[in-house]
């Protein structure tokens, strides 16, 4: 049989390196299919189908596992006993220590928005609208999304690293043997803190963002301060702010969920924890962008 032209053996099969005939026949692989073109194609097709099926099964398994994890963690959020110390610690971590980074992000976003919309809107003599543009963009979109992304990097990574390390050093096993449910002790407090703290952060971000726009508008673009503030309030509706806060709550939940989920299921040593951290940040960021679209659709679609 022409071994060099045999189709690639399935993963994990050592046939091509096998020295003896016995060794090779111990494995089932495509080497044994007669090398007519038809069979070769069939072999390839089967290989492709098997790979697709395997990937699909892995996907289903991961989805199911995430769903179970979410369900269990949510049920622990509402079932006493809760752990007030843990909740408080997480709230301080998320709410208080994220203030500088979220504040700075909001400030510069507001400032750049004012600058950009001024130079853009002056082309059709609509400079007057920039206060409105700033406040609507910040409250509806940029406040929650940028705060969410920043917190995903800061908190999601930290959660995945902490819980992942606890997993690989058997601390999670130790929790169980001390009759403490890890979902209740580790995951639920983080979900509660994420869900409640992000909206508070976003309120702060909204105020700072609008203030950033105000600074640029008044001191750089020479708007009248009082009329800028008037313009800011003029078209602002409660739904603009509320939709932003709903987004923030959901983003906070997603960030904590991804951090906990990936940390909880990390394996191996430092490398596994590293992978968990990356996955937590990436998946949280993507989910934030997807849900941002979905929630915007629910609140503002006119159709």
């Amino acid at each position, binding site marked *: 049989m022409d071994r060099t032209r045999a189709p690639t053996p399935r993963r994990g099969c050592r046939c091509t390196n096998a020295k003896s005939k016995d060794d090779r026949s111990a494995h089932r692989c495509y080497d044994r299919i007669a090398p007519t073109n038809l069979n070769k194609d069939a072999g390839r097709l089967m290989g492709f189908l098997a790979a697709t099926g395997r990937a699909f099964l892995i996907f289903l398994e991961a989805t199911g596992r995430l769903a179970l994890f979410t369900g269990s963690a949510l049920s622990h959020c509402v079932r006493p006993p809760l752990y007030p110390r843990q909740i408080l610690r997480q709230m301080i971590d998320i709410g208080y220590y994220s203030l500088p980074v979220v504040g700075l992000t909001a400030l510069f976003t507001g400032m750049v928005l004012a600058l950009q919309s001024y130079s853009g809107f002056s082309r059709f003599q609509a400079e007057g609208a920039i206060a409105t543009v700033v406040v609507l963009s910040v409250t509806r979109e940029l406040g929650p999304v940028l705060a969410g992304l920043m917190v995903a990097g800061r908190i999601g990574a930290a959660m995945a690293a*902490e819980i992942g*390390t*606890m997993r690989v*050093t*058997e*601390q999670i*096993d*130790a*929790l*169980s*043997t*001390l*009759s*403490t*449910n890890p979902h209740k*002790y580790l995951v639920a407090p983080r979900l509660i803190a994420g869900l409640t703290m992000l909206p508070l952060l976003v309120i702060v971000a909204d105020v700072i963002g609008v203030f950033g726009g105000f600074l640029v508008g008044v001191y750089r673009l020479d708007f009248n301060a009082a009329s800028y503030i008037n313009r800011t309030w003029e078209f602002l509706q409660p739904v603009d702010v509320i939709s932003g806060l709903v987004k923030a709550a959901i983003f906070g939940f997603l960030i904590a969920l991804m951090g906990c989920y990936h940390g909880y299921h990390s394996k191996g040593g430092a490398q596994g924890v590293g992978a968990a951290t990356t996955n937590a940040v990436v998946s949280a960021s993507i989910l934030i962008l997807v849900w941002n679209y979905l929630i915007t659709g629910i609140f503002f679609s006119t159709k």
Partner: protein
Amino acid sequence: MTDPKIALPKIALKGVRKQFGPKKVLNGIDLEVGKGESLVVIGGSGTGKSVMLKCILGLLAPDAGSIMVDGVETTKLRTREREKLLHKFGMLFQGAALFDSLKVWENVAFGLIQGEHMPRAQAKEIAIAKLGAVGLSPDVAELSPAELSGGMQKRVGLARAIADEPEIIFFDEPTTGLDPIMADVINELIVQCVKDLGATAVTITHDMASARKIADRVAMIYEGRIIWTGHAGDIDHSGNAHVDQFVHGRAEGPIKMQVRAL
């Protein structure tokens, strides 16, 4: 008391199997531990001793077989029931597994505060007393686990395992990494737990001196099975070549180490 056949065994394993991928680790474990008995499990590195303890605790789900604790089948328990069952257990992990976000005394008092809802001040007193019993001074209590040496961490783990006076205590290599004198102190502590508290103890150890001191009975695990159990006094004339080789630590014998010459 030490004969498991008279009374209901505290722990009984039958045909327990566990494999990771293609690797069969436990291959039909049969083992009984009587109430108030101290069993020492010996066996080569990587033969599945720690995995066996984790299966009993339900941290790993066995692939087959039955595990009874106080006559109750535990392999199919639901989370709530398992939580209740674990109240009976204390475990010293091989790597100590201390909570590094908590202080040393909070680690020791964890089971008391979370499990038994004891006030923190009272739990702290007990924790400091338990730390004293493993030879650690009260000022260690305020440190974080990362500031301790390996042997100290092990002793804190031990203090945590016995803090809420469980009925069943598992010690995974309690004396590894300790100096010989401290090792003997820990041996006595384990004997004391069994004698005074009436606890049932399962200890994994590679330290034969420790095994002789702690054990009522010894079980040897090899290739995923218990190949020998007997009274502690009999390990020198077990009549089993594997046990003989292990107890005397000889490289030659029926147990072949998977090593290649340099």
